[in-house]
């Protein structure tokens, strides 16, 4: 009972079963999404073809926040109920979330160039995304700044929760700061109204991104579990040698 941390076999079996399904679903959804987004849907009457970038930019931005929320929740579970897997889920989520945030920033700037004529615009959403990126970096840096992985995950869990509490405050102050210094940009990120033909590829891509996240999450959690097993074995060999 007491070494339940060492081999959460139940999770490994569960992951092994559903992972192929999630993989298949993700590939299928991406295929459909790309087809709808690039071929089937019309260009936007106002933004022209650049609206197609929305099909990758908006899901990335969604996932950036979705992952951070997921991370904060699993950190909360890890701290309060000391559930061993929650720690690993948060540690596994961070790089994925950071990658989505990075993508949101890159596609956002690629979107901004034709729209506003500049690679980087201090638009409220993009700026908040940039701050979120730093929160991810801080989490990951703190997570492996310790020799003992247990210490790293506990410290970064607290940081994730503190960060999570601050996200709305930062969002509010950046929005407020943006309206103060920046005349409201005419072309809002999502366009005046999302036309049905644009909505469907957007939703499909959104779900595709989510299933992709679950797929990579399962792989990374299995990696963390295996790495923990390896560390436990190495430690036991060290301490057994001492007797």
């Amino acid at each position, binding site marked *: *009972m*007491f*070494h339940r*941390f*060492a081999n959460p076999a139940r999770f490994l079996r569960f992951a092994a079963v559903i992972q192929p399904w999630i993989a298949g679903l993700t590939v299928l959804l991406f295929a459909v999404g790309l087809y709808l987004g690039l071929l089937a849907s019309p260009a936007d009457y106002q933004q022209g073809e650049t609206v197609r970038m929305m099909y990758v930019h908006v899901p990335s931005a969604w996932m950036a926040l979705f992952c951070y929320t997921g991370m904060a929740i699993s950190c909360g579970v890890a701290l309060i109920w*000391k559930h061993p897997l929650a720690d690993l889920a948060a540690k596994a989520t961070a790089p994925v979330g950071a990658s989505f945030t990075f993508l949101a920033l890159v596609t956002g700037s690629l979107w901004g160039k034709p729209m506003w004529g500049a690679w980087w615009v201090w638009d409220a959403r993009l700026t908040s995304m940039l701050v979120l990126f730093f929160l991810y970096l801080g989490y990951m840096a703190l997570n492996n700044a310790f020799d*003992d*992985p*247990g210490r790293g995950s506990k410290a970064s869990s607290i940081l994730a929760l503190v960060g999570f509490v601050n996200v709305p405050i930062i969002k509010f102050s950046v929005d407020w700061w943006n309206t103060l210094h920046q005349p409201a940009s005419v072309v809002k990120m999502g366009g005046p109204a999302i036309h049905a033909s644009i909505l469907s590829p957007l939703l499909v891509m959104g779900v595709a991104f989510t299933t992709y996240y679950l797929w990579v999450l399962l792989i990374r959690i299995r990696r963390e579990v295996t790495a*923990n097993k390896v*560390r*436990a074995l190495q*430690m*036991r060999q060290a*301490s*057994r040698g*001492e*007797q």
Partner: protein
Amino acid sequence: MQNHHLGSSLSLFTGTDLVCFRGGRTVFAGLGFALSPGEALMLRGPNGSGKSSLLRLMAGLGQPLEGALTWSDESIANDPEAHNARLHYIGHADPVKPVLTVTENLRFWATLRPGFGNGEDAIASALEKLGIGHLADVPGRFLSAGQKRRVNLARILAAPASLWLLDEPQTALDRAAEKNLKDAIADHRAGGGMVAISSHAENSLANARELDINQFRADSP
């Protein structure tokens, strides 16, 4: 000496099937102990077997993965401040600030304790008991390791507490200081206090119970 249930048959401070998980490994499992006023518990076992970890759990620095630590049947985690008020802990490090004199160091720690009533002479008598009365006004940076350890020991004499948790207290102490320590522990126990001590010294305390941590090693795969 406050809050002692002298003569209570039920042991005051108990630990039941404790599991300690630290530094990525299970240090010990299924460990139990019981302490009653006047008793001493000697923790034995090789390095890394978890003596310090057990003392830290007893002090409340971190929670056991499983099992319970209770003080007169109430878990110590329920009210950490109350538990802190009734214990003194000597760890590996002796927190003596180099720029403060010995008395200033001791006065700081003593003022944080509830039982610190009679001020200066409690500190003076504590220093005398450990044979370092002459160091009262010496700044910390001039003290040797042995003297720092004695100042740390004087800290727990200056303000009363019923439970002493001593992690290899005799390191860096010379023969005379070790004797002073033994006497202090004997007085503490005579007054109804309790001691849990991890130590490699062979000459253990008078009628102290022993607990070999090694038998609770977790050797599971």
